[in-house]
């Protein structure tokens, strides 16, 4: 039991897909201006990752290794089409905001990375847990980044105003820089800084 638990908890901190494995940065940064798209994006990735892991793990003994990348891409693309159609049907506004980034889950390095590194060599159940764990690790970073960017950039959380009106009367101004794309990188860098100061074994040698 503890081993399966470790599969889920490890990616949350010590083996986080974004800050430690440095995978799947592309989409992580682009959808974090507001909290809502970030959460929807995390859930989509979690779903695709968990099920792609299971499917590839079931097929792992039948895929010839020369064409495995194409097989993996087809499995992922099929799952992403599912997610995309569901989002378009039930959350059209968010799907418009995410624009091309739902499609880009196909090439999200986290998914390919986990399929290559884990699902090809493990049974379906551990692969499923690994998918959930890594999806959750991805989600945590996305939500932290989106929380701070929305709070400082627009003064809201999930579209609800958090900064009191009185602040603005005293001259508080939303930090427009936080909404711009480059700040996402810098917020992630700060997260990495904090994480590595707390767990020193992650520091890269010179």
């Amino acid at each position, binding site marked *: 039991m503890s081993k399966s638990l470790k599969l889920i908890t490890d990616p949350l901190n010590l083996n986080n897909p974004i800050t430690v494995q440095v995978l799947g940065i592309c989409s992580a940064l682009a959808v974090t201006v507001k909290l809502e798209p970030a959460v929807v994006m995390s859930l989509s990735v979690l779903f695709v990752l968990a099920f792609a892991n299971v499917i590839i793990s079931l097929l792992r003994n039948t895929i010839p290794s020369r064409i495995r990348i194409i097989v993996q891409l*087809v499995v992922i693309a099929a799952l992403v089409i599912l997610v995309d*159609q569901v989002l378009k049907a039930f959350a059209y506004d968010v799907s418009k905001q995410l624009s091309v980034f739902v499609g880009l889950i196909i090439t999200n390095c986290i998914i390919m990375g986990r399929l290559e590194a884990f699902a090809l060599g493990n049974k379906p159940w551990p692969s499923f847990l690994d998918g959930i764990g890594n999806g959750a690790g991805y989600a945590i970073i996305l939500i932290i980044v989106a929380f701070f960017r929305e709070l400082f950039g627009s003064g809201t959380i999930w579209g609800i105003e958090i900064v009191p009106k009185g602040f603005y009367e005293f001259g508080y101004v939303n930090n427009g820089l936080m909404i711009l794309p480059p*700040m996402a990188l810098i917020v992630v860098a700060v997260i990495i800084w904090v994480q590595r100061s707390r767990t020193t074994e992650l520091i890269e040698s010179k």
Partner: protein
Amino acid sequence: MEEILNIFVKSIFIDNMIFAYFLGMCSYLAVSKTVNTATGLGIAVVFVLGITVPVNYLIENFLLKKGALVWLLGESAAKIDLEFLSFIMFIAVIASMVQLVEMIVEKFAPALYSELGIFLPLIAVNCAILGGALFMQEREYTSIAEATSFALGSGIGWFLAIVGIAAIREKIKYSNIPAPLRGIGITFIITGLMGIAFMSFMGIKL
């Protein structure tokens, strides 16, 4: 003609793949340790983008779009809409093109081939390539010339970004960085600052 030039300049500087949309971040971070390999990968990306986007443009406009099949099946096909297949078609084109490029590079530039190593096949899952195809779809370019100039512009923008960061990383090895920021952390911050610098191009129009 003017419009084509405008799209070209715009996709290099303003809508830069890395600084504005964070596409292709994974290989951008992993291969930017030395200028030489970065240049090789940059050229490969320009090449693959320059081929795949026009090909995908043709597929989109003559096969997938609503009513696109009229030229083949006559008026009865006007209602057929295969848009939902676009992810799978695009990724299949990209994967096969990358395979082709890989064979060409292996034959004619073996040194570059061994240097790029694993990253050449991984261009298939480089978000910048699929991102190029999806942006082409979303922005609805009116002619194949526009789509091609967009593809080449984005490729060159990506090339500039990766060569720039590689040059900076070669120098930064000698500086004294806070331990937790070493490696990936400082690279994020530099990319953020480069992104802010690139934003000064905003509003350029030919």
